[in-house]
């Protein structure tokens, strides 16, 4: 019987691995292991054997059955793979150059938002916190508390929109400095981003634009610290190292400075450069040490505290960073512009 079994086993193995398709394989399964299959028949014959023999043969038959089942499974997988491979190779190749069709195309952030956030994130890393203030302001916060009384010639530098004096649209983000200092005792380390408004509309001015203002107040801050912070900011924003500080005047800071960055186009060479008008430098903001009168107006002791403030126009930075040449395009909202960001 053993021989017979071994022969069946060998035959079945050969047949299984030469079955051409799943149907043939299924027929083989029925042929050997179906209700009337050969192995099933042999199993039925076991009951006629002596108990010793029956146990021995039972074990052998079971092993063969397991082996065949395994063979069938293996062959089944093989045949499936063959079929799949055929299907894959017969499929028409896609035109992979056709555009993708995910239902949602990503939108975009306005370049102003992007630059504003860049500046905020860079300054947050060194401990600045964001504060905001109202866009509709009082003259007190926008001017008087910033050492700019009525009839101060510096008020000419800013043409202000009024709602009803003394209520106005803030002409800079500096009133947020005042609100912050009135609200909190030193030390202070804040930035104030936001919209500002000036009554000016031409090629290089829009009646609304964006600024970011920084303020740091403590007992021992100097112009040297201001230089350090601004150099850090510009280095991270523009990946350029060269800044110059040029004496200037703002009513609310003294000493005051204009900050110029080495021209990113001509790299400071200043020859035939339209961007920097061949000066080699680009104005990017104003800054200075907080004027003692500003400290007095918020109840800080100017003998004890010192501090610095800086401000810059976001549009200006965005224009330089992205190579935008028309200021007004920021507020036209032409999709052909927006989709580039």
């Amino acid at each position, binding site marked *: 019987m053993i021989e017979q079994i071994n022969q069946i086993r060998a035959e079945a193995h050969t047949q299984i691995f030469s079955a051409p398709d799943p149907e043939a394989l299924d027929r083989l399964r029925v042929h050997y292991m179906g209700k009337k299959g050969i192995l099933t028949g042999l199993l039925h014959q076991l009951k006629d054997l002596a108990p010793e023999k029956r146990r021995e043969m039972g074990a052998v038959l079971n092993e063969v059955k397991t082996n065949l089942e395994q063979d069938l499974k293996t062959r089944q997988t093989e045949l499936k793979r063959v079929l799949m491979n055929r299907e894959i190779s017969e499929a028409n190749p896609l035109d992979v150059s056709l555009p993708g069709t995910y239902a949602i195309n990503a*939108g975009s952030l306005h370049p*102003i*938002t992007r630059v504003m956030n860049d500046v905020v994130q860079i300054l947050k890393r060194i401990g600045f916190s964001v504060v905001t203030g*109202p866009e*509709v302001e*009082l003259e007190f916060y926008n001017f008087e508390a910033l050492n700019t009384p009525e009839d101060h010639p510096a008020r000419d530098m800013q043409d202000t929109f009024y709602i009803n004096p003394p209520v106005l649209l803030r002409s800079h983000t500096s009133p947020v400095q005042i609100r912050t200092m009135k609200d909190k005792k030193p030390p202070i380390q804040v930035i104030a981003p936001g*919209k500002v408004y000036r009554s000016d509309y031409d090629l290089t001015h829009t009646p609304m634009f964006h600024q970011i203002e920084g303020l740091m107040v403590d007992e021992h801050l100097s112009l040297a610290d201001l230089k350090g912070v601004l150099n850090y900011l510009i280095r991270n924003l523009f990946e350029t190292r060269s800044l110059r500080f040029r004496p*200037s005047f703002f009513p609310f800071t003294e000493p005051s400075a204009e900050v110029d960055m080495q021209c990113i186009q001509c790299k400071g060479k200043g020859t035939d450069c339209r961007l920097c008008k061949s000066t080699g430098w680009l104005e990017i903001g104003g800054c200075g040490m907080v004027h003692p009168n500003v400290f007095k107006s918020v109840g800080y002791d100017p003998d004890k505290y010192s501090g610095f403030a800086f401000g810059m126009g976001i549009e200006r930075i965005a224009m330089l960073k992205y190579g935008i040449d028309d200021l007004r395009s920021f507020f036209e909202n032409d999709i*052909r512009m927006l989709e580039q960001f």
Partner: protein
Amino acid sequence: MLLSLNWLRDYLAKSDMKIDPKDLADKLTMRGIHVAGIKRPSFSLENVVVGQIKKIDKHPNADRLQVTQVVTKAGENAELIQIVCGAKNIAEGDIVPIALPGSVLPGDFEIKKSTIRGVESFGMICSGKELGISEDSEGILQLPKHSVIGQPLTSLLGGGSNDTIFEFELTPNRPDCLSVLGLAREIAPVLKTKLREQKQIKFKITPHRTSSIIKVEVEDPAICPRYVARVIDGLKVQESPDWIKQRLEAVGIRPINNIVDITNFVMIEYGQPLHAFDLRKIQSGTIKVATCKTPTNFSLLSGESVGLEVGDILIQDGDRPIALAGIMGGENSQIAADTTSIVLESAAFLSTQIRKTSKRLALHTESSKRFEKGFDLAVVAAASERAASLLRDSMNANVYHPPIDTNEYGAKEAVISIDMRDIRKITGLKEISAEKAGELLDSIDIPSHKKSVNILSVRLPTHRPDLKGNVDLIEEVARLEGYDSIPEYFPTSLATYDRLDETNFDFEFRAKNLCSSMGLRETIHYSFVSEDLLRNYGFAHDGMISLKNPLSDEMKVLRTSLLPSLLQTYSYNLNRKVQHQRLFELARTFSWDDKEETKVKETPYLAGLLSGNLSGSGWKDKPIALDFYHVKGLVENLVRQLTTVKLSFESSKNTTIYHPNRSATIKLGLKEVGSLGEIHPVVRDSILETHEPVMLFELNLEALRKYERTTTRYKTPSKFPAIEIDLAFVVDRNISCHAVLENMKHTGGELLSDVSVFDIYEGESIGASKKSMAFHLTFQSLERTLQDSEIQDLKNRILANLKEKHGAELRS
């Protein structure tokens, strides 16, 4: 302020020193005296000479060109030089300017030997414009016939054409630099020279002093702290000498006559505006400085009539105004062709009032520009002397001496002490000594002496009215030492704010990012729009806030909603053939509110607009038209990610902008926090002129921010199997999905872990005014495996309650 380099040289000890304009400009700029431009800095007329055209031939290869032979040396045997010329107005024998190779003409135009269409040319015959000495570009500049051939052009034309003009952009704190003298003070140390000693001006005491001819009364020294009046006679009105005219023209002032020109000359020189009255017109014999008491009209010497108001400072002949003090003289007292005697006024007027008046009248004169920023009481007298001496010396005029001076003592110079430790603390210049600071200040005529190691006593000179306190001197020292020499430190972080103090910046940025990730493009619009725009879309109301001084009607009213601007942008882009638009904006809206300090409440809003189809590229999938539920889904997603709130949706209120049946008001509890829906078809057709549906939404971010999602509480998923069933029922069409869901949740309790609608059907088979709603229900417990029987039981109760409450019939 324009400065002529030649004029400046008059004030330098080494007046003929070599000066590199570009280098000087850079150094001044770095000292805070900002040079915005240099005119004619880069050309040299050195190689431009007087020449004569000897012969003219046609150019062999060009009809419009001629080949000339010129001489640039005197004498019969002078060498002929060949120059190709394109101008028409030349003839043999003409005396003309010749730019020889090596000349650099204005505009950095270097003349070189060249070949023009095959003919060699050794220079250029120049027009006045090419030389930068006149605007006339019509043809070659014809020089006087008697000119010496070979003479450098500069010596023929005088110095004027070889001047360099600096254009300064001065900060308002430096009125002293609105003068040649003031700028010379800043420039001398830069050039390592000193100011030239000015000659003492002396006048003979005349038998008639000014005070025997006229009187001067100043109503209040506060409005006029010093008034110097001088009578001068024996004058004859005529053209000024050339050197005065040239100087004035160089800095952009038109010469008028010798008297007016000299007052202007001294104003530019000293920074002190002067005025000359015709003595015959001072009929009362008394010049009175007073404020206007009753509004009246006044004719200026410009011919313009202005309305005077109470408070304006006037110069009066008795009680009759003859000048708007510090701004402009009157027509009734101006210098006439036959004027022979004048009263020369040199005075100081209250800056704030000059500023107020000139601003109100929009009259910004050279005089008012200076007075409104400050004055130097000492220079009031000096300028009067200077002008008088110029009038005397240039036309033998008779100066009545002494003058009337309402404040002979001028100004007292204040003395303040500065502590070097303060300078070091503020500037970061840790090493700077009192000696060094003293030297720096001294270099610009600010005298000081050292009182101790750290204390410097400084006399504040009258020519620097901007210097008042310690901090002004700290700035001077830092500026003169140079900001470049200030070291660079990195301050230690003082971060004291934490998340609880944070403003809405992060929240708003997160909202913007979410919108962007859901396919919307951010826009930014002006905060002010036209009233009509708001009205068109139903957002105009009594609470609108208008600007008092808008730039135009288009930018007059502060926005009460962001949607009108988005619709404007939609139209703008639609006109550029962009159908598919996804826009959003996050900005503040404005409304009156008495509770606010400014009476204006600012509320941050997030608004969006979607048009076109849901999916973008149409080559594969069937386009799905956008509808209400798409934009609702967007809003729900947004709010779910930003906040922890549950919004509810009710029929819309603004049915001007929204389709009345396809829009909703968004509510948070009882509070209205926004709106969304499809645009009203009438608005779409009439205003936007499109047939595309447009979806809008607007959300009040201030209301939502209170529920900002700052953290998430994690719930362990159930370990027990879920049982899912679908139920469909027929209800009246007006029953809302929300009501059915709430009812099911109420009945299902904790075990109904999720329920969602998956189909809505309306059709004849279920009867008119009915609809079928199909829901997918998931039952699951956190504690145990649920039994079929209890689910069956729960399902039956849900059906019973729905039937009782909403008349829902299970659909079979």
